[in-house]
């Protein structure tokens, strides 16, 4: 290109009169400058021209643990959504993520969790880009903004499994089918408010509870955060979730120690407080950094429990319904320290309190057990896209079972992997 222009210009120069010479030289110079600019300029950056950014998370593990068919937390109704693997070698869900701008006004995002004979739509939502004044709206299926860890996908967790608090609250995390509105205040400190209205078909809601005009689940949250000097940053939040499950199925052991299928209809209201603090020397996390996070919840459920007739198996339930009321709580705290590049070590403690559960006249005995678990982990990340982890845990979440677990895990991400939240 250069050469053609230059020779054309040279030819032109030799055949023209001297009077035009200077003018032509100037023109050539300008043309050359334009070529340089056009060739050298960086194209506008963005996720891969017009294709959505695509990334794939590969995720698998080897686990050494007790052979327990249903790992349910004693004293807590079983939650819905879980991705845990069994013993030995297993493949966790492979996550396929698509994201990109739809147009100047909206952004779209979808995560598909792939497993054998199953594709689960984890998330599929659009978000506004141009509302302005601090507002952002989201619609579709999304991870609820409540709490801290809820919006993190399993590949971003600091441990190989979810903490007991979220397992008791949601099974794994709260997925909402609905709408979310967030507002970021125009203040020096970070101050954000959000509300969500959703179908509420996932635990603590239920499929039948979602089948209504209106919303089966409401959530609201407020977060505040900031920096302290250049080395510390933090965020704290207070969150509320109200779900209206109908005929939510769970099972208990009745007073005769026989399994009883029960269905709950009523209100489920939870408060969650979350806190995260990160440290990095002078704000540079590449060598060493530390992250502390803790969350606390309290959940009250109030309604009616129907206990399916199990007298044929020698059970005590006669197929009757009665008042059900529970007040349960729990917390976890964890710290993860990157002590040198690529290497991190962490410790987590989970504790739940099955609290007071009033079954009314239903013949189910409340279980008196306080589930807890100690977890330590060590992980090695050759780059920001690959990670190997060793995790040891002593799990006392099931009454009468002391489960010492060893998990070896890998998490790799391919493709246009988006930035992670704070």
């Amino acid at each position, binding site marked *: 290109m250069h050469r053609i222009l230059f020779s054309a210009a040279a030819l032109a120069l030799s055949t023209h009169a001297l009077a035009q010479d200077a003018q032509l030289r100037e023109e050539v110079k300008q043309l050359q400058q334009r070529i*340089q*600019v056009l*060739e*050298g*300029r*960086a*194209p*506008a*950056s*963005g996720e891969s021209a017009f294709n959505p950014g695509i990334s794939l998370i590969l995720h698998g593990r080897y686990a050494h643990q007790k052979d327990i068919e249903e790992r349910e937390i004693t004293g807590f109704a079983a939650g819905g959504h879980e991705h845990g693997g069994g013993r030995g070698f297993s493949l966790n869900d492979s996550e396929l993520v698509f994201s990109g701008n739809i147009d*100047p006004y909206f*952004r779209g995002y979808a995560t598909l969790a792939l497993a054998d004979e199953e594709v689960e739509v984890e998330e599929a939502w659009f*978000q506004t*880009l*141009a*509302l*302005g*004044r*601090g*507002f*952002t709206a989201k619609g579709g299926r999304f991870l609820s903004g409540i709490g801290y860890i809820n919006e993190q996908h399993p590949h971003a967790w600091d441990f190989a499994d979810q903490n007991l608090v979220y397992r008791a609250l949601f099974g794994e995390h709260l997925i909402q089918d609905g709408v979310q509105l*967030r*507002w*970021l*205040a*125009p*203040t*020096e*400190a*970070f*101050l*954000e408010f959000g509300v969500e209205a959703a179908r509420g078909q996932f635990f603590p809601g239920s499929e039948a509870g979602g089948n209504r005009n209106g919303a089966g689940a409401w959530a609201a949250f407020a*977060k*505040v*955060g*900031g*920096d302290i000097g*250049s080395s510390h*940053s*933090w*965020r704290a939040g207070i969150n509320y979730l109200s779900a209206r499950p109908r005929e939510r199925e769970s099972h208990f052991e009745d007073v005769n120690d026989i399994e009883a299928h029960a269905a709950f209809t009523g209100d489920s209201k939870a408060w969650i407080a979350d806190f995260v603090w*990160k440290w990095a020397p*002078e*704000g*540079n*996390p*590449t*060598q060493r950094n530390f992250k502390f996070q803790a969350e606390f919840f309290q959940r009250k459920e109030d309604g009616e429990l129907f206990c399916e007739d199990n007298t044929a198996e020698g059970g005590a339930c006669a197929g009757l319904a009665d008042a059900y009321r529970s007040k349960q709580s729990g917390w976890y705290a964890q710290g993860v320290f990157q002590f040198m*590049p*690529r290497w991190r070590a962490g410790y987590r403690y989970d504790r739940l309190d099955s609290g007071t559960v009033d079954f009314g006249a239903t013949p189910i005995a409340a279980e008196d057990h306080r589930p807890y678990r100690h977890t330590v982990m060590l992980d090695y990340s050759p*780059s920001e*896209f690959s990670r190997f982890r060793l995790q040891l845990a002593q799990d006392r979440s099931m009454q009468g079972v002391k489960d010492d677990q060893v998990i070896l895990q890998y998490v790799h991400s*391919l493709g246009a992997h*988006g*930035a*992670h*939240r*704070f």
Partner: protein
Amino acid sequence: MKRFIALLAACTALAAAPARGALNVLACEPEWASLVQELAGDRARVVSATTARQDPHRIEARPALLAQARRADLLVCTGADLEIGWLPLLQREAGNAGIQPGQPGYFEAARFVDLGEKPARVDRSMGDVHAAGNPHIHLDPRNLLKVAEALSARLAALDARNAGDYAARHRDFSARMQAAIARWERDAASLKGMRVLAHHRNWTYLAEWLQLRVVADLEPKPGIEPSAAYLAQLLEKLKAQPAKMVLRTPYQPPRASEWIAERAGMRAVELPFTVGGSAAAKDLFSLFEDTLVRLKDAAQ
């Protein structure tokens, strides 16, 4: 054409921006914060998202930065995917329509400069490569002149009432920078052809300007910290082709460069890299002055 664009930009800015005081500017790196200060003076309140002690590839979209992005009238960043790990989140989560890509409130410096080291092929096996080219453009002061011209026009478009003021400030800055560049080039003539090692590939533009020869990087691949084995290998290579010094930024750990400098009989030099990177580097001018002082000192 140019005038038409400027007019159009001015009109949209007039329609969009309500009358208010100083412009809130969030700069992604300290060099751009400093440039905004030069070009806008008191007319802008500037905050930098990173400091000279932080690696601009690797910070997080912290709550404090989200709060800044929410109130920003203008984001001034390098672009070319340098800030890909955190900037897109700030733009998406701050609820600020004005700073989205393509809006006048988002300024990417790399778009106004010819980027070097564009990879012919992009693959993650090559480390942290930037598809658009090497984004560490600010250490060639001639690039600053190009960016300043575009940034000044952008400031004028966003704050049209003070356009004359921005133009005057730009003329002044440009004249001072051009004079300084001529002075620095004379001053650094003795460094021409000097062989250096670089910790990360962020000295390319400085080397190009001063005609230094970067013979190798300490990182085996961009963004991947060197292992002991790789450094030993590099040391062997240096025996045949010695270099004068190894350069690093204040945010990189000194161990690797000091280890190899000691064994290869060269100097390990920490240059300020950006404004605030040393006590002397207080603005863009003293940044280059201090850089040259340190280079010449180590070259002796």
